[in-house]
C-alpha cells in the first residue's frame, strides 16, 4: 500500500457501539475485506491489543488501521479509527471522532439501544458528522430490527430507513456496510498547500521506539525530517518516521490531507503528548489550533499505599511505569497517619481506576492498600479563590471557605418500563434531580437525571442492575461543578482521628453514612485487649458512636502432646495477619476496613 490516495478516495470513519454489540467483530470483517489480515493468522478481535482489554471485552485505547477496498471497480483507502467504549474515556472518543468524517453506529439487533449507544451517538452528532446506523447480529433468532428502528427514531431522531442490517459474525450484509462507508461518508476536506495542521488523537508508548503519536492530517502534509511543533504543550520535534497502520506499522514517505497514521519523533514520555493537541510546522507563521483541546480531568481519586512501608519506592517506580502507557493517570505523594507514605492517584473514572489498579498489582506484585475513592471538590475560599481538593483530608477548616462544589453529571439510564419506579426511587435517594423521560419503544424507556458523581461512584451501578433485573444500562456526560451543602464526616477510632477514613458527604446524609461506616468498622476491626470507641463527627459534634468490645480471652486451651512446631505455626499465622494491619494509635486495623466508607448498610 505504498501508493498515495487523493483525498476524494479516502474515507475516515469510526465504529461506535455499546459494549458487546459487536464492534470488534465488525472491525475484523473490515480487515479481512481490506486484505489487512491473513485469515490463517486471524486473531479474534485483533484491534484490542492489551490483555486486559481482551479479558474485559472492552477497548481502552483507540487504535487505527488503513484498509484498501474496491467499490464499483475503484480503490478507496478506508481509515478505521477504533474508539474506547466507555464513558471514562469519552474525551478520547471525542478526539477519535474528530479525526473522522463519519461513524457507524452499531446496535445489537436483539438488545437494542443501550446507554453507551446514546452517549456515543450524542458525541458523534455533536461533531456534525455523518452517522450511519447499523443493526448487527440480525442472524440471531431473537433479533427485533423493527422495534429497534423505532427506538432509533424515538431516542436519537435518526431516520430508520437509512439503517443497514448485517451480521458481523456470519459476514451477511457487511459488503453493503463497506459500500455505505464509501458512498455516504464524505471525503476529507483540507488545503494541501496550507501549512501543516494535524490532530493528535492518540498516543502509545513503545519500549523500543518511544512514543508513537497517532495523527490525522487536516491541512498540508507531514514528512520524515520535518520539524514539527505541538501547539498545546509547546514542544518541538524532528520527525523520524511517518507511516500507516496496516494494522502493523508501515513507514511512508509522507502523510497528506485527510490521511491517518503515526509519527515517531524521539519523544520519551507519554506525558509529553496530549490527546487533542495540534501538530504544526515549527517553521513559518503560527497555525490556528484545531478546536476542542483540553487537559484530561481526573474525576475519581483514591489513596494507594504499600502494605509494607519499605515498598514505597517500588510503588513509585510501578506508578511511573504505568504512566508510560497511560498518560491520563496522575499521582502525587501523600502521607496518612494510619497508612504512612503513599500516593494520591487520580483517574478518569471508576473503570479507569479499576483497570489501573489491576495492572499495578499484576505488573508490580506489590501488595497495596487502597482507600475508598472520592471525587474532586472545588472549594471557594473566603479570599475569592477556588481550590480543587482530591482528598477529604485536604478540605480546609470550615471557617476558611464559603462554598463547596461537587461534580454533577447528566446521567442517561435505559431500562425496561416496569423498573421505572425502582430506578426513580434509587436516583432520588442519591440526591438526583430528574430531567426527562423518553420512550424508546412500548417496553423501554430512557430517563435522564442529574446525579452527583460522588453518589454514582459507590455501588450505584450494582443497585441499578439489581433494580432492573440486569437490563438497565447507564452512561453519563462530562461533569460540571455545582454547589452543595457538603460536610466533612470525620471518623475517630479510640479517640484518634483516622484521616484515611474521613469522607465528604451531604449534610443530610452524614448521620446515616456515619452510622453505616461505624457498623462496618465494628465488623472489620478485630477485638483488642481494650474496648475501642468508634465515633463519627461533623465539625466538633459527634453524630454517631459504636464500640468494639474488649477481647475476652485469647489463649490456646489445649497445648500438650508435645507438638510445639504446630502451635508455633498457628501463632506465626496470627503474627503475619497482624503485620498486614495498619495502626491507628493503639488500634490495629485490617486493610479491608479502609474501604468501610463505601458501606451503605443500615
Amino acid at each position, binding site marked *: 500500500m505504498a501508493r498515495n490516495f487523493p483525498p476524494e478516495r479516502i474515507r475516515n470513519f469510526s465504529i461506535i457501539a455499546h459494549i458487546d454489540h459487536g464492534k470488534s467483530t465488525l472491525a475484523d470483517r473490515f480487515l479481512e475485506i481490506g486484505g489487512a489480515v491473513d485469515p490463517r493468522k486471524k486473531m479474534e478481535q485483533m484491534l484490542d491489543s492489551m490483555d486486559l482489554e481482551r479479558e474485559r471485552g472492552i477497548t481502552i485505547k483507540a487504535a487505527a488501521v488503513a484498509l484498501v477496498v474496491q467499490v464499483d471497480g475503484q480503490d478507496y483507502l478506508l481509515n478505521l479509527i477504533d474508539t474506547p467504549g466507555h464513558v471514562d474515556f469519552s474525551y478520547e472518543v471525542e478526539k477519535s471522532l474528530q479525526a473522522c468524517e463519519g461513524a457507524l453506529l452499531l446496535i445489537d439487533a436483539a438488545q437494542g439501544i443501550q446507554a453507551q449507544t446514546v452517549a456515543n451517538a450524542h458525541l458523534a452528532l455533536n461533531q456534525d458528522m455523518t452517522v450511519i446506523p447499523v443493526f448487527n447480529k440480525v442472524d440471531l433468532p431473537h433479533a427485533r430490527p423493527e422495534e429497534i428502528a423505532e427506538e432509533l427514531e424515538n431516542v436519537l431522531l435518526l431516520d430508520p430507513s437509512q439503517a443497514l442490517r448485517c451480521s458481523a459474525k456470519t459476514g451477511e450484509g457487511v459488503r453493503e456496510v463497506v459500500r455505505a462507508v464509501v458512498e455516504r461518508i464524505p471525503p476529507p476536506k483540507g488545503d494541501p498547500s496550507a501549512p501543516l495542521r494535524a490532530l493528535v488523537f492518540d498516543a502509545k508508548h513503545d519500549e523500543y521506539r518511544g512514543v508513537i503519536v497517532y495523527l490525522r492530517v487536516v491541512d498540508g502534509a507531514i514528512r520524515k525530517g520535518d520539524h514539527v511543533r505541538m501547539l498545546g504543550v509547546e514542544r518541538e520535534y524532528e520527525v523520524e518516521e511517518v507511516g500507516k497502520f496496516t494494522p502493523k506499522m508501515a513507514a511512508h514517505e509522507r502523510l497528506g490531507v485527510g490521511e491517518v497514521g503515526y509519527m515517531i519523533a524521539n519523544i520519551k514520555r507519554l506525558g509529553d503528548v496530549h490527546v487533542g493537541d495540534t501538530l504544526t510546522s515549527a517553521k513559518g507563521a503560527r497555525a490556528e489550533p484545531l478546536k476542542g483541546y483540553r487537559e484530561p480531568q481526573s474525576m475519581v481519586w483514591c489513596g494507594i499505599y504499600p502494605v509494607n512501608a519499605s515498598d514505597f519506592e517500588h510503588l513509585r517506580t510501578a506508578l511511573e511505569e504505568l504512566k508510560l502507557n497511560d498518560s491520563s493517570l496522575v499521582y502525587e505523594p501523600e502521607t496518612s497517619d494510619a497508612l504512612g507514605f503513599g500516593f494520591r492517584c487520580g483517574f478518569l473514572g471508576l473503570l479507569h481506576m479499576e483497570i489501573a489498579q489491576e495492572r499495578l498489582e499484576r505488573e508490580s506484585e506489590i501488595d497495596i492498600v487502597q482507600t475508598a475513592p472520592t471525587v474532586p471538590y472545588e472549594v471557594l475560599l473566603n479570599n475569592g479563590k477556588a481550590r480543587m481538593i482530591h482528598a477529604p483530608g485536604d478540605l480546609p477548616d470550615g471557617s476558611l471557605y464559603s462554598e463547596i462544589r461537587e461534580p454533577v453529571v447528566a446521567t442517561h439510564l435505559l431500562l425496561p418500563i416496569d423498573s421505572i419506579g425502582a430506578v426513580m426511587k434509587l436516583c432520588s435517594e442519591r440526591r438526583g434531580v430528574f430531567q426527562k423521560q423518553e420512550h424508546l419503544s412500548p417496553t423501554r424507556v430512557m430517563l435522564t437525571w442529574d446525579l452527583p458523581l460522588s453518589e454514582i461512584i459507590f455501588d450505584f451501578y450494582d443497585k441499578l442492575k439489581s433494580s432492573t433485573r440486569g437490563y438497565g444500562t447507564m452512561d453519563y456526560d462530562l461533569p460540571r461543578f455545582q454547589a452543595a451543602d457538603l460536610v466533612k464526616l470525620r471518623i475517630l477510632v479510640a479517640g484518634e482521628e483516622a484521616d484515611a477514613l474521613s469522607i465528604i458527604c451531604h449534610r443530610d446524609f452524614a448521620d446515616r453514612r456515619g452510622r453505616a461506616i461505624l457498623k462496618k468498622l465494628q465488623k472489620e476491626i478485630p477485638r483488642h485487649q481494650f474496648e475501642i470507641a468508634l465515633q463519627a463527627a461533623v465539625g466538633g459534634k459527634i453524630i454517631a458512636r459504636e464500640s468494639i468490645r474488649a477481647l475476652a*480471652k485469647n489463649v490456646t486451651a489445649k497445648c500438650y502432646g*508435645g507438638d510445639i*512446631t504446630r502451635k508455633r505455626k498457628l501463632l506465626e499465622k*496470627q503474627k503475619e495477619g*497482624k503485620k498486614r494491619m495498619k495502626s491507628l494509635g493503639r488500634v490495629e486495623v485490617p486493610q479491608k476496613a479502609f474501604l468501610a466508607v463505601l458501606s451503605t448498610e443500615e
Partner: protein
Amino acid sequence: MRASQRLRLAAAAAPAEMLREDGRSLYVHLPFCTSKCRYCDFNSYAWSGQSLERHVRAVLAEARARAAGLRPQTVFIGGGTPSFLPAPLLGELLQQLDEVTGFRASASEVTMEANPESFDDARAAAAAAGGVNRVSIGVQSLRAPVLRAYDRVHSAETALAALRRARALFARVNADLIYAFPGQDPQEWQEDLESVLALGVDHVSCYELSFEPGTALTRMRDAGRFRAEEPERGRALFERTRALCARHGFGQYEVSNYARAGAACRHNLAYWRSLDYVGIGAGAASWLDGERRKNLELPEAYEQAVRAGKDPVAEAERTDPATTLFDALMMGLRLPAEGVLLERARRISGLDPAAACGATLDELIGEGLLELTPGPARRLRATDSGLPFLDSILTRLLAVLRP
C-alpha cells in the same frame, strides 16, 4: 500473696525438684479410638478392624531403634485411646517397653490415658501391673446431651465408674473436662466439676471448647449447625473454674491444668519447661538435643515405614536460637506460677531473653501482662490478667524474635 497464687506455687514446687534438667521423657502414641469425637484434632482414628498387634509391634520396633536404654524420668502413654488395646496386648506393650527403655526403674511418673468405655477392670489391672502409676480419664462432660453432641461413646455414669475404678488402683488420677458448651449453665458446670473433684482425683484438666481446623465441630459451626459460645461467657467460666478449683485446694499450675499440692503432671511439666523428650508412635513429636521432629501421622504409613526398617520421621527441624527461645517462652509462659526460668532459656537458646525481646518485653511488663520475679533465679511469667491473653502476648514476642 493471694490464696490462689499460694496454691499455684505449692502445686508446682514439689515435682519441680523431681524433674532433672538433663533428664529425658518418653511419650508413646496409640492412635486408635472407638470413634472420633467431634471436637478432636489429635492424630487419632476410629478403629476399622486393622491389626492392633501389628501396630504395637511397630511401636515397639521404633522404641528399640530410638529409645533403647533411654531411662526416661517420666512416661506418658497417650492417644487416641491407649485403653482401647485389649488387656493382654497392653500388658505386653508395657513389659517390652520397660525391657527396651528401663522406665520402671527410672521414671517417677508413668501416666496412661483412658476413655471410660474401655477402662475396665482387666485393662486397669494390666496397666497397674505394667508400671502405670497415674491414669488420665477422658470424662469431658457429665451431661448426656453434651456427650451426644461431642459424639462421645460413654455415659456420665460410665465416666464416674471409670474414675472410681481408677481411684481404687492408682494413687494419682486426672479427669479431662471440657467447658463452654454453647448455652452451658455456669451452675451446671460447677456441679459437674465438683462431682469429679469429690471422687478424690488429685488433678483436673479443664479445657475451653475450641474449634480446631478440620474437626467435625468446626465444619458444623461453619455450616451454621453449631453455635460457638460467646467469648465473654467462655471467659466467665474460665474465671469460675479458677476460683472453684482454688477453693478445693487445686492450684492452676498451667492455663488449663489444676492440681493438688505436689500432684502436677510431671510429664507435661517437662514439655512446658522445654526438657528433652522422645516421642514414639504415629504422629508423635520429639524434642531432643536441639532438634524437633515429628513422625508420620497415618498409622498405615507409620507401620509401613517401621516394617521396612526405616525411620518413620515426617519432618525434623533444628531450631535456630530465636526459635528455641520463642518455643521456651511459648511453653513456659503457660505456667502462671513458675513461668520461664530466664537463665535456662538463655542456656538452651544461647540468647539473652531480655535483650532478644527488647522493648516489646518492657511494654508487655508495663501493660501488666507479664512480670519478672525478684531474686537471683529470675523468672518471667504471665500475670493473672495476662494469662487469658497469652496468644496475643506470644504473637507480639514472635514478631520481635522471628520478624
